[in-house]
C-alpha cells in the first residue's frame, strides 16, 4: 500500500451508489413499483423515490377562488354504460338509470371493517370542498371545484390496519390504479361526489371519482367501484397503468 486514504471521493461515490441501489432493490419486496427491467420504469421509480425522500411532508396543492374555475374537458371514458362503447358496462347503465341509488363503493383488503358505502353513506361523513387545478399528462390544465369525503376518513371508518402500504382502486370503465399511503392519507385526496356545486356529472366520473391533487389527472380515477387496501404493490395487471406503458407515479 503506497497511500492510505480513509475515504476517497471514488469510494464515497461507490458507497453512496451501493446504498441507493439497495434502496431501489427493496422494490423487489414490492414496496416500490416493479420495473420489469425496463429502463423507463427505473427512471419513474427513481423520480418517485427522490420525491418521497427529498420533499417535505404532505403539503397542500394550491387552492383557488370560485372566479378561477375554468372550462373542463372530459376525456377518456365519458360514460361507461354508453351502448356505443366497445364493451358497455351494463351494471353501470343500470346504476345510472336508477340515479345511482343502488351504487355501492366497496372497501376491502387490510381493513378491520370491510364493507360497502352508498352515496348517502359517503355524504353523511364530514365533507371537504376544494378548488384545485387538474393537470393532464397531455399538457392541458383546468380548474374545478370538488366536493367529497377525504379518502383518509373512509379508510379510518373502515379501520385500516397498520400493515397497509398501498390503496388500489377499480373503476366501472375497467381501469385499476393505486397510490401509496402518503397520497391516500393526503388531506386533499377525496372521494369526490360533487363538481362545481352540483352532483358530479357523468362525463367527469359520476357518481364518485377520486381526486389526487398531488399527481397528474390520470391518477384521479373516474367511476369508482372498489377500493382495496394492500401491504404490497399491485400493478393491476393489464388494466393498470404500468402494463399499459404509463408511469405508476405521476407526481411530475
Amino acid at each position, binding site marked *: 500500500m503506497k497511500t492510505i486514504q480513509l475515504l476517497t471521493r471514488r469510494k464515497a461515490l461507490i458507497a453512496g451508489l451501493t446504498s441507493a441501489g439497495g434502496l431501489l432493490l427493496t422494490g423487489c419486496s414490492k414496496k416500490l413499483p416493479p420495473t420489469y427491467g425496463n*429502463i*423507463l*420504469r*427505473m*427512471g*419513474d421509480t*427513481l*423520480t418517485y423515490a427522490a*420525491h418521497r425522500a427529498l*420533499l*417535505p411532508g404532505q*403539503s*397542500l*396543492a*394550491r387552492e*383557488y377562488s370560485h372566479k*378561477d*374555475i*375554468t*372550462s*373542463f*374537458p*372530459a*376525456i377518456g371514458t*365519458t360514460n361507461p354504460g354508453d351502448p356505443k362503447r366497445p364493451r358497455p358496462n351494463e351494471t353501470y347503465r343500470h346504476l345510472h338509470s336508477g340515479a345511482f341509488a343502488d351504487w355501492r363503493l366497496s372497501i376491502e383488503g387490510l381493513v378491520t371493517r370491510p364493507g360497502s358505502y352508498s352515496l348517502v353513506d359517503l355524504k353523511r361523513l364530514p365533507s371537504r370542498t376544494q378548488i384545485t*387545478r387538474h*393537470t*393532464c*399528462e*397531455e*399538457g*392541458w*390544465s*383546468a*380548474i374545478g371545484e370538488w366536493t367529497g369525503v377525504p379518502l383518509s376518513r373512509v379508510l379510518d371508518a373502515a379501520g385500516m390496519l397498520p400493515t397497509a402500504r398501498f390503496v388500489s382502486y377499480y373503476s366501472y370503465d375497467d381501469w385499476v390504479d393505486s397510490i401509496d399511503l402518503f397520497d391516500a392519507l393526503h388531506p386533499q385526496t377525496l372521494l369526490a361526489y360533487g*363538481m*362545481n*356545486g*352540483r352532483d358530479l*356529472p357523468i*362525463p*367527469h366520473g359520476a357518481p364518485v371519482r377520486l381526486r389526487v*391533487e*398531488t*399527481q*397528474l389527472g390520470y391518477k384521479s380515477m373516474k367511476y369508482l367501484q372498489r377500493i382495496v387496501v394492500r401491504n404490497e404493490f399491485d400493478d393491476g395487471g393489464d388494466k393498470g397503468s404500468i402494463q*399499459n*406503458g*404509463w*408511469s405508476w407515479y405521476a*407526481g*411530475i
Partner: protein
Amino acid sequence: MAESPQPQEQRGPAGHTRWVRISHWIVSVSFLTLAFSGFVILMAHPRLYWGEAGNNLTPALLELPISRNHQHGGWEERAPFFQDAASPISANRTYGIFNQNGWGRSLHFLAAWFLVVPGAVYLLAGLFTGHFRRHLVPRAGELTPRLIAQDLRSHLRLQIRSATGGPHYGLMQKCAYSGVVFLALPLAVVTGLAMSPTITAAYPLLSGIFGGFQSARTIHFFASAVLVLFLLVHVVMIIKSGFRRQMRAMTFGKTT
C-alpha cells in the same frame, strides 16, 4: 487555483479538462433526448397558454401545427357549469388524439436526471475551480461596444477563428456559453420542475414566480427552442472551425 492564468495557458491551448469533457457529452446526449421527447410530449397538446389553466375549451396563446391534434375540433355535448352566459363549460372529446406520452414522459424525466445531476456537479466544479471566472464569463473589459460589434461582424461574415482545442473563447462564444449554462438550461430545468403537481405543492413559489403552471410550460417551450437554436449554431461553428480537431479536443482532451 491561482488568480493569474497559468503560464501554459498563455502559451497555447490547455485543452478541455476531463470533468468538462465528461459533463459536456453527458449533457449533450441528455439534451438531445430531452428535446426529442419534449417534442413528442408537445405533439399531444400543441397549444400554449399563460396563467394556471388552459385547455381546448379556453383560448390559446399559441397553437403549433405539429400533429393531427392541431385544432382537431372534436368536442361535443357542451354543457355550462353555471347559470350565467359567461359560464365555463364542460365538453366531451370525440376525437382520438395523437398521444405517445406514456414512453415520452418517462423518457423525458429519465433524461432529465442526466441533465440535472451532472449539470449540478458541473456548476459546482466550474465555480470552485475558477473555470467560469477564467474561461466562460466575459471579462468586464471585454464587454465594450467596439469589441462586441467587432466580434459580431466577423461572425456575421462567418470569419470563424480556427479551433484552439481548448477553453480560450471569443467574446460571442463566451456570451453564448454563459447564456446556455447560467440562463437557458437552468430556466428549462426550473420551469420543468414548476410543472410538477407534487413539487409545486411543496414549493408553491416555484410555480408562482412564472405566473402559473401553463406560463411555466410556455417558458419551458421557449427556453428549449432557444437551446435548440444554440445547438444548431454551435454545430455550425464547430464545423467552420475544424470539426475533427474540435471533436477530438472535446472527447480526448489535448490535441497537440
